């Protein structure tokens, strides 16, 4: 084991000994790839002699999305308590940077499931895809069926009067503040969104904010064992998560597929059945365009972070090239008058 990682793991074990008032000894520690917003570590311990797995997420010097760790942690607590979706059990939030140099949170390790988007295309997963799709959009529908008050998230999240307006203002600000080069496609999409703003929804709920392939753990049987990465969670319109989950960026090799699993219309039907809500197609079109603008904002912000920030994570630089290229293509396919819809099908 990397000696620095070993030492870090022992510090975590010592810290947890204090939290649990128990003897904790490090067994193994490994860094989990893909944690663009936080450094993520899988740690196996012996707690008073019994096996115990945890996941630690530590603030990096620079991250893909500027978010508050306490906000994310409280969201995990609320969702875990409600049982509306499977999430890892939150154990501790440490905001004092003294313990491990930077603030961090610790959750229980979810022992089964993989987040890999690419593995969804493997032969072993083909039979389980319908079940997985059913679970994925049923869970999202279930989340939409609960009010923010029922989940208790309105105790620490703002309740917007006009979610679409608020989200657009925020992400437009990110694009204009962080773009390293003028963005005519993003600006055209923003103008379209401003012209076609939907009425405020009467159904406010907890929005995950990044509900997509790669942010949930699944098994080869198609079960979902955990929904992860709640750092962009907020109270808003449930159509926001639905549109984000269906964005062609997450489609994989076949752009007609929602999240590499099933056709978009089928996913939408599962969500409607589970949530008890009927999708307003006009509003949904708005959220589909918004999803691509928000994603573009994240890639733009990542590129800016790579250039001007302190972390030189390759994922941040990649966001600024092929990811922006793809997302722009999706917007062009959907908004330009003579689109051939070669990359993104027409809006649902």
């Amino acid at each position, binding site marked *: 084991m990397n000696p620095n990682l070993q030492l870090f793991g022992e510090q975590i074990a010592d810290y947890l000994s204090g939290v649990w008032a128990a003897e904790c000894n490090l067994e193994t520690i490994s860094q989990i790839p893909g944690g663009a917003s936080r450094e993520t570590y899988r740690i196996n311990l012996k707690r008073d002699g019994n096996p115990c797995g945890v996941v630690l997420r530590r603030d990096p010097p620079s991250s893909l999305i500027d978010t508050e760790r306490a906000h994310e942690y409280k969201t995990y607590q609320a969702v875990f308590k409600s049982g509306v979706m499977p999430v890892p059990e939150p154990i501790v939030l440490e905001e004092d940077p003294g313990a491990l140099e930077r603030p961090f949170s610790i959750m229980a390790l979810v022992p089964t499931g993989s987040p890999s988007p690419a593995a969804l295309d493997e032969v072993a997963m083909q039979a389980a895809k319908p079940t997985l799709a059913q679970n994925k959009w049923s869970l999202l529908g279930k989340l939409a069926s609960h009010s923010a008050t029922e989940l208790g998230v309105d105790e620490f999240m703002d309740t917007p009067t006009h979610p679409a307006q608020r989200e657009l203002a925020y992400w437009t600000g990110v694009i204009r503040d962080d773009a390293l*080069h003028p963005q005519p496609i993003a600006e055209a999409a923003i*103008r379209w969104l401003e012209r076609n703003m939907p009425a405020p929804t009467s159904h406010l709920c907890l929005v995950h904010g990044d509900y997509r392939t790669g942010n949930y753990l699944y098994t080869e049987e198609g079960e979902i064992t955990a929904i992860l990465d709640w750092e962009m969670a907020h109270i808003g319109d449930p159509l926001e998560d639905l549109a984000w989950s269906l964005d062609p*960026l997450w489609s994989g090799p076949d752009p007609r597929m929602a999240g590499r699993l099933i056709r978009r219309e089928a996913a939408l039907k599962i969500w409607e059945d589970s949530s008890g809500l009927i999708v307003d197609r006009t509003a949904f079109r708005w959220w589909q365009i918004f999803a691509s603008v928000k994603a573009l904002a994240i890639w733009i912000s990542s590129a800016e972070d790579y250039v001007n920030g302190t972390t030189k994570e*390759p994922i941040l630089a990649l966001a600024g090239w092929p990811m922006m*290229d793809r997302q722009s293509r999706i917007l062009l396919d959907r908004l*330009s008058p*003579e*689109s051939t819809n070669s990359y993104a099908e027409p809006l649902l």
Partner: protein
Amino acid sequence: MIPAPGQTLADIATRLATHLLPELGSEYGQADAGLLATLLLTISQDYERAVDNRMTDVEEMRDLFESATGAPNLNALLEYTQSQPQSLHLRDVNAHHAQGFEYLIELHTWAEHHSADLDTEIWAFLRRHNERNKFDIPGP
């Protein structure tokens, strides 16, 4: 000198992915090396075409600006059509291209309300621009 730096970058990316990556012990190390290989491949694709693509955009924007009869700020647009980047170094070409894009955004905003033909032409330009700068890289 090797007169094909873009190809060399692509070769390094392949070497990293096929030789170094499998030798790395940790899952994190392998993922990081994979990202670096993809990043190098991305840069290799942009390296050769970057200046040419920006200058093609600039030429096509000139045509759009020259046809923008009635647009506000027309004098600035026409002045842009007569200008050149300070040099063919990428940073100077980028700066010149960025100025053109700023004007294009203004013009597009105006065209949406005043000239359906120009609006369509600008969208067509944006599609050509995007196609020129497309990356052949696996998606997320």
